[in-house]
């Protein structure tokens, strides 16, 4: 547990020193979300229907963009080797790094999402649902993303590769996450979607750090 807290603090401190990275992820999120109305047209009813999907895709892409940073710099400067040699389970250390990534890259997206949702004309209830789905879903993106980032560590064209690898794995998160607002609006209730997201989160919380740790060991050989 000591190691978990230490790595979490370390990564958060480093994120504080590089605020521009966080800002870049946010700008990307805003940009992608704002491009859609420009491409589709200002029709409010249409925008309102596509808003949850658009914001989810934008959040997904933004978190994808920030993934390479999760291990790449540590890999390059040798600190990842040191972490792998620490007397603590590498999976626990990976979990700390994943949590730090979520706090640094995804939480700002969740916080900003309501503002963008207003641009799309969503009402208060839909916005609340959207934020709830993002709050449950983005940790999943970080957990699954960590495996992709670890597998492509130090590989040529890693950015595109990571997207190709993760796209299929992100599909269920996207479907259940983006479906929350719709399910709630159509009166079906979002409970099923949310509990499925929760179940996936619980399973990934256990499995993804193990997968990430194995991938990191493979990369460090």
């Amino acid at each position, binding site marked *: 547990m000591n190691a978990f807290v*230490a790595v979490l603090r370390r990564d958060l401190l480093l994120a504080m020193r590089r605020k521009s990275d966080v800002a870049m992820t946010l700008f990307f999120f805003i940009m992608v979300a704002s491009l859609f109305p420009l491409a589709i047209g200002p029709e409010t009813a249409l925008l309102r229907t596509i808003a949850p999907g658009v914001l989810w895709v934008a959040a997904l892409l933004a978190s994808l963009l920030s993934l390479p940073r999760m291990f790449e*710099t540590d890999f390059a400067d040798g*600190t990842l*080797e040191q972490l*792998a*040699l620490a007397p603590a389970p590498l999976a626990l250390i990976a979990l700390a790094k994943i949590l730090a990534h979520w706090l640094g890259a995804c939480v700002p997206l969740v916080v900003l999402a309501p503002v963008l949702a207003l641009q799309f004309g969503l009402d208060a209830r839909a916005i609340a649902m959207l934020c709830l789905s993002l709050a449950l879903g983005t940790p999943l993106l970080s957990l699954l993303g960590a495996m992709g980032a670890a597998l492509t560590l130090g590989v040529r064209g890693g950015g595109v590769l990571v997207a190709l690898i993760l796209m299929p794995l992100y599909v269920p998160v996207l479907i259940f996450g983006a479906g929350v607002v719709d399910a709630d609006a159509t009166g079906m209730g979002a409970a099923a979607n949310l509990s499925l997201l929760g179940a996936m989160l619980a399973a990934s919380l256990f499995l993804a750090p193990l997968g990430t740790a194995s991938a990191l060991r493979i990369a460090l*050989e």
Partner: protein
Amino acid sequence: MLEVSALCCMRGEREIFRDMSFVLADGAWIHIRGENGAGKTTLLKALTGLLRPASGSVAWNGIPLHESRDDFHRDLLYLGHANGIKDDLDAAENLMLAGSIVDAPTAAEITLAMRELGLNPSSRTPVRSLSQGQKRRVALSRLALGRTKLWILDEPFAALDTAAVASVCRLMDRHLDRGGALVLTSHQEVPLGGRGTEVWIGTPQENNP
């Protein structure tokens, strides 16, 4: 005590070395020698457990590495080619963070360790703007922190000036006197006392003590 028996390592399809066997007793040191690209770093990585050998085994105090990874890593200090320090942090922060994963060192200990290597403990400059030699010194300050029993150092003297080499050697001698063990690679002669041996990779004068 580190025991290496019949170790064989591969890089891709290439066999780097085979039948590497030696024993490193407490208080002794081994200087791994070989030409550039002979596989010294590969051997060190196999000794730390980062690299899985193709065959053969490495055992620490009689227990194979993969069976007691955490115990072994608690006794191990490894310094690779890369310094393992973050550019965005200053020297003291780096040492604090590196140490805190095992057992948090106090500020006084860190100050002492930095002095040992001739660094200014009160400097708040991010490591990014230090010279190569100074970065290496920051990384090597870890030698003066904590009490790990086995040091595995890859080119510890690279980029260091003579004064720094002398202080690193002083730390090494102290480590050996305490009964610590040391494995290092270097292209220069290593002026250390105690029981030292050389292990060659990939040359005819291979000798396995």
